[in-house]
């Protein structure tokens, strides 16, 4: 079965370039603005869109994404509304891969089977669930594979060669390499170190490897895109969104444009990079 993610990477391979992957929190700063932003992203150059599912206790996220989640929750965002947002996006775009990223509890409470069915029907392509390591694959990963959704696993600097096969075993779509041991929005990784890590992962899998955490500028995105199959940017986009809000944390006429403009600049960075030889 070819998924939207597989098709996307196949097309990028033809073009000889890496993917620009964006992350934003669903419902930040409110559901309507959030939908307008993600609708604007493909035009701005995003190849794959990650959408955060807001959670009160995002243990692996830094202050920016944590605050984005709380803004969304305050604006009434729920998992159900996140799936509605995906449906809204799919009305106009049936090609751009959409990946939901978040923590397990809201899905567990929604009900795993119902969530997978609803997510698939809404047009979700993949899931990244930060607090589900391979040791807990029976919870969601294996049911997601059966439901036809990619379960994208995180590999990190602490994932050594001995552990990598376990991490990659049920991974599909792409591998998300977390370039630093740390939280989102933390220090930037050295692109040479990242390059070595990507090469190491590629010795174990044919899947594309995208790299995230610590990428904030077009130059940094270009450097990473030269070493990996994709560069993921989250915190910088969330910060641009936050900077456009009014004093009460509400969207302004500038909000959608502020995010789209930064996304365009980052996309230029990624697209200016020639991908390293496979």
């Amino acid at each position: 079965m070819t998924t939207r993610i597989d098709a996307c990477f196949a097309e990028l391979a033809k073009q000889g370039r890496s993917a620009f992957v964006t992350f934003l929190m669903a419902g930040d700063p409110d559901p309507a603005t959030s939908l307008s932003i993600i609708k604007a992203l493909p035009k701005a150059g995003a190849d794959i869109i990650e959408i955060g599912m807001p959670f009160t206790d995002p243990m692996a996220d830094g202050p920016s994404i944590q605050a984005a989640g709380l803004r969304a929750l305050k604006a009434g965002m729920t998992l159900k509304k996140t799936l509605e947002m995906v449906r809204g996006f799919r009305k106009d775009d049936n090609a751009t891969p959409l990946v939901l990223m978040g923590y397990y509890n809201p899905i567990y409470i929604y009900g795993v089977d119902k969530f997978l069915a609803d997510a698939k029907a809404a047009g979700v392509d993949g899931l990244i669930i930060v607090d589900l390591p391979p040791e807990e694959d029976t919870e969601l990963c294996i049911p997601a594979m059966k439901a036809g959704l990619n379960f994208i696993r995180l590999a990190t600097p602490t994932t050594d060669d001995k552990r990598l096969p376990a991490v990659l075993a049920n991974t599909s779509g792409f591998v998300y390499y977390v370039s630093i041991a740390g939280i989102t929005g933390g220090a930037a990784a050295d692109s040479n170190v990242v390059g070595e890590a990507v090469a190491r992962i590629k010795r174990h899998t044919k899947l594309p490897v995208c790299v995230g955490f610590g990428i904030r500028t077009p130059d940094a995105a270009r450097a990473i895109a030269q070493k990996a199959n994709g560069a993921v940017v989250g915190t910088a986009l969330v910060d641009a969104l936050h900077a456009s809000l009014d004093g009460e944390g509400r969207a302004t006429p500038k909000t959608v444009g502020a995010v789209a403009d930064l996304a365009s600049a980052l996309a230029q960075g990624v697209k200016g990079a020639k991908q390293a030889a496979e």
Partner: protein
Amino acid sequence: MNPNLPNSFRTGPDERGHFGIFGGRFVAETLMPLILDLEKAYADAKADPAFQAEMNGYLKNYVGRPSPLYFAERLTEHLGGAKIYFKREELNHTGSHKVNNVLGQIMVARRMGKKRIIAETGAGQHGVATATLCARFGLDCVVYMGAVDVERQQPNVIRMEMLGARVVPVQSGSRTLKDAMNDALRDWVTNVHDTFYCIGTVAGPHPYPMMVRDFQSVIGDETRTQMQEIEGRLPDSLIACIGGGSNAMGLFHPFLDDPSIEIFGVEAAGHGLTQLHAASIAGGRPGVLHGNRTYLLMDEDGQIQDAHSISAGLDYPGIGPEHSWLHETGRVTYLSATDEEALEAFQLLSRLEGIIPALEPAHAIAKVLELAPKRPKDHLMVVNLSGRGDKDVPQVGDILKGRKK
């Protein structure tokens, strides 16, 4: 009672860290290799007689164990029912049961070659115990504490700083224990190469709930021996307060397979179970947070709700996974006591026995006031007096002063 009861309540968790459906290892990939290393290091330590011998030496000469099992004669007379015994964990060095677990974990951390210790704390008792043992063994210590708790538990903040620890006030979320745990996990993810996370209760990813329980089981093991010595038989009932539930698990675990013994855990009902509270079993349902599946306070969308208790140590929206399992199997009965009931018990115990308890065990005492009069005079009841009230004296003093006005 569940029809599929196990033959033993003491064999958990399974090799994947599960107590029934509870427990597990729900953490970011960055932490998994370290958690697997810890599991191995703990298994090695447990099997090493030298580790046990060294630990027993510190328990005796540094912590001050065994803690006494004290017959509370005046409280018993006052209530006119069961014979009430206190397991005096508040007499331990640092003033609570927390030191038992911290000693064990710090010794494991030393075996693993870790030089930097992080911890989260609510009331500050776990933070003080961690700061104390880090001082004793020359380790760097960082303690995450909700900003609200930093305010209401000043004496313990001062103690931690005197012991050389850095106390980080956590400003996110509800600024209490839950948020301190989130920030401790963020620190750990960031500094995984040299840092050991010393968790303060029987929660978190496997092997923590098991490891902390094992270190705290010294409470119940001693109680068994002491009650045999004093009364020539086992107790009839056990009572302990529960936030995460480590003092309770330590008392309960060695008695779980003695079916004649009634066991009660007491959660914090705060302003009442229909209002703000911290009673995860009475008012929550199973979910996944902080590395384990357990009973949690949350809304219908799976978002974690803020807990409330007068006691910072009980102010947590979850409970250790083994307690969730003991609740579902029916082996332990979980009750709850309000802020007001705990305050009354706090004052009664101070006046009748000359023991100022921490607000945490005052919740257990509150239920003793209900249960003991209904039991016969030959019923032996053990209450875990998990901590002393020094840290709560300013807070309770302010509340009582406010009422006199």
